[in-house]
């Protein structure tokens, strides 16, 4: 079937299998490989992207369902070569090690901070329950989220 998506501001049309998952559309059709697949039960969150600004797990959305919608992946987060505050905070706070969970984790935090610009540590931890990381023990991911929130408060 034919689908039309806007991915990181770029219109992409393609004829795809009905059952094609959004994450495979992003990786194989749009050739954007930052978004990873870490499980097959919607448990790990590695594939988290924004659909019309809301975080979704792209392994559990069909490309067909995303047709006509806007998708943002981590590749589309920086503006004019400047990292997004959440990306910057991950770098400053050492919020990543192997990097596999990172794109999904960053997108989940972008979405979380949009809903709650001033979260407590516990709110960040609860908000990230659907995103697994095996390397960092979450400590610096949580710090990065709080640091990005602080930066948002300063700039607001």
């Amino acid at each position, binding site marked *: 079937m034919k689908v039309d998506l806007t991915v990181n501001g770029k219109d992409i049309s393609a004829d795809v299998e009905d059952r094609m998952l959004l994450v495979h559309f992003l990786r194989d059709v749009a050739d954007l*490989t930052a978004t990873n697949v870490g499980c097959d039960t919607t448990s790990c969150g590695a594939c988290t992207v924004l659909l019309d600004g809301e975080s979704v797990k792209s392994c559990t959305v069909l490309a067909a369902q995303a047709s006509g919608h806007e998708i943002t992946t981590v590749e589309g987060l920086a503006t004019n070569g400047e990292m997004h505050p959440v990306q910057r905070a991950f770098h400053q706070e050492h919020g990543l090690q192997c*990097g596999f969970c990172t794109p999904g984790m960053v997108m989940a935090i972008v979405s979380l901070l949009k809903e709650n610009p001033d979260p407590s540590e516990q709110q960040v931890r609860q908000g990230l329950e659907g995103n697994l990381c095996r*390397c960092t023990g*979450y400590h610096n991911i*949580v710090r990065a989220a709080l640091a990005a929130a602080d930066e948002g408060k300063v700039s607001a």
Partner: protein
Amino acid sequence: MSILGTRVIRTEDPRLLTAGAVYVDDLRVPELDGAARVTFVRSPVAHARITGIDASAALSEPGVVAVLTVQDMTDLAPPPPDSGEPVGGEGPAPLGGPWSEPLLAADTVRFVGEPVAVVITDGRYQGEDAADLVTVDYDPLPAVVGPEAALTSESLLFPAAGSNIPLTSPVSADDAPFDACEVVVEQAIVNQRLACMPLEGRATAATFENGKLTVWHSSQNAQLCRLILCGALGMAPDQIRVIVPDVGGGFGAKVGIDRDGLVVAWAARKTGRALRWNETRSENLVGMTQGRAQLHHIKIGGNRDGKILAYRIDVIQDSGAYSRMGGFLPMLTCLMAPGVYDIPAVQAGYRVVVTNATPISAYRGAGRPEAAATIERAVDLFAAEIGMDPAEVRRRNFVAPDKFPFQTKTGALYDSGQYEEALDKVLAGAGYQELRKEQERRRASGDVRQLGIGISSYVEITAADGAAGETAKLEVADDGTATVYTGSSPHGQGHHTAWAMLVQEELGIPMDKVTVVHGDTDLIPVGVGTYASRSLQLGGSAVHKAAVEVKDEARRQAADILEAAEADVVLDTISGLWQVRGDPEASLTWAQVAGHTSGGLVADVSFAADLPTFPFGAHVSVVEVDTETGKVTLLRHVTVDDAGPVLNPVLAEGQRHGGIAQGAAQALLEEVLYDADGNPLTSTLADYAAITAAELPSYELLASETPTTVNPLGVKGIGEAGTIGSTPAIQNAVIDAVAHLGIRHIDMPTTPQRVWTAINEAQKAGNQ
């Protein structure tokens, strides 16, 4: 000012954060254009004879290129003859002879998930469709589930071997040391089977063109992959190139390349097609090697003054269906059995058994967390029995600081340690006395939420294979940039940052002009890899050594250009300029010095250590246990992890954080489970309780740096310390929270169900 020891954020990150890393499945290299997809047909039963495989229905599906089974492996040498004797012994080697593991199942399957056939398809989704259509007839055999069932040898995995016990190192039965004790405690302790679960599962791509096999593999060491490929496929090293791109975590399960990856490489050679394989998580949770899986029977004895006099540990190692590491894991457990304690009599031994489960291999700590968990539990059991504070019992038994280097009763030579200092520091940091008062208050008031305080003091062994060493080649080009080719193999640790820091420190070439290359056997034919917390102490020391050699050669070149005596030529590592002492006008850049040589400045070195190192530390964990539901909440975790001088606190702390979380996961939540027929019950992430941010606190890390003398940097390994220290502290804390109810032990993971059951049973016993 030295850059070593300073907080340098990672050079790797901007790429990972904006474009994403390039893992095997992300490769878009021309050689893999149009690559076909590999899908494995795996055994759905734990133990069975294969009586037939019919691929005809699959072959008629659209997009199916081939279906391959062991029958197609006619180009491979037959397995070695059955000698009746295990091969490999105590080293980390697979067992041969009657215990051999085939690439694809021959006539028997021995665990759910064992590869039986591969389906090769043009498209991603076609593979799963076609794999479902491959019909395999299984004639079930009785499944051996769990180590105790294996010991009975009622059903044999390898009938030709005559038992399920490939290796033994019997524990002493001499009770005399215990007979002399005032108090003796015995306990069976489970160290449960865990999934390693790197976020990126296993992944391989392969091409075979003009007689050369190129394999891209998610691994902790490209060179070992090549060695294994050579043996499995009967090829010479120069016929194989292994490339390890970015790797999404390993934790021990990606050391080398296992049978699934070998099959992909073989299939590329067989079909002549470029192939890609990227396992699903459901495959990963049955197919990737798992960790721990030991059952311990311990006996600890001592006097009421707190002095421990004797300790015995009898280890049963469940190796799963194929004993890929032989006796290596329980050997390390026995080596580290007495931990930080100076115990006059120590008895340690093991049996390795095969069971119808996923093979066991290294997982973060690999044999040492098991040792630490059990000795720390044993000390707490002993402390409870004599009614002494567990911290005090530890103090009375530590190896004293003046006894290093210390030869243990199990044969380890501890290089350096300050065990009491580490414990005192962590107790002070945690506010131990105040915590005990709060615990007392809650116990007195009968609070539903009881407080538990757990301690662990640990020592572990890192770079146990230090003699195998590590390689580094350092080149300074005539534009003043430097390139490091390392045999070490990062998968999240931050080698690119750390190695560049070492070069800047020694040569004054700024980090942003240093490129680090790893994981390509054409560029780096000799290398050992990243595991066993070995990278900095061996790979880093190799980089340091190469830098020193380059500096010596550069000094000779600079002296020649400047027409000065070598002794008068000095490098200013701040400006990166070569100067003549007392003549600030005469100076040369690295570009000028390198340009003066014919072949550039190059040092190609390897560094080996004569001895392993023994990092140590102490953890305090504070938990709250809801006595009505059994739910455990980890409130605080405070640690001292001493691995010698810290190169970059950002990286070292990151390693400690990740280690603590994986240790907490074992203590609290995670466990691979099978039913009575050997069917896995935790084969998806919906079932396997991987720990999340919501179940963990922020960690409180305290600094401590006791150098070693076995390498020039004075460093020990930090990659596994957090895991080794945290697991027993948390388990001890949970039991401490309910100890006043009459509970002396709860096995890991301390799930709500298990804690609630322990409380309930203790109450029933109390009411009788």
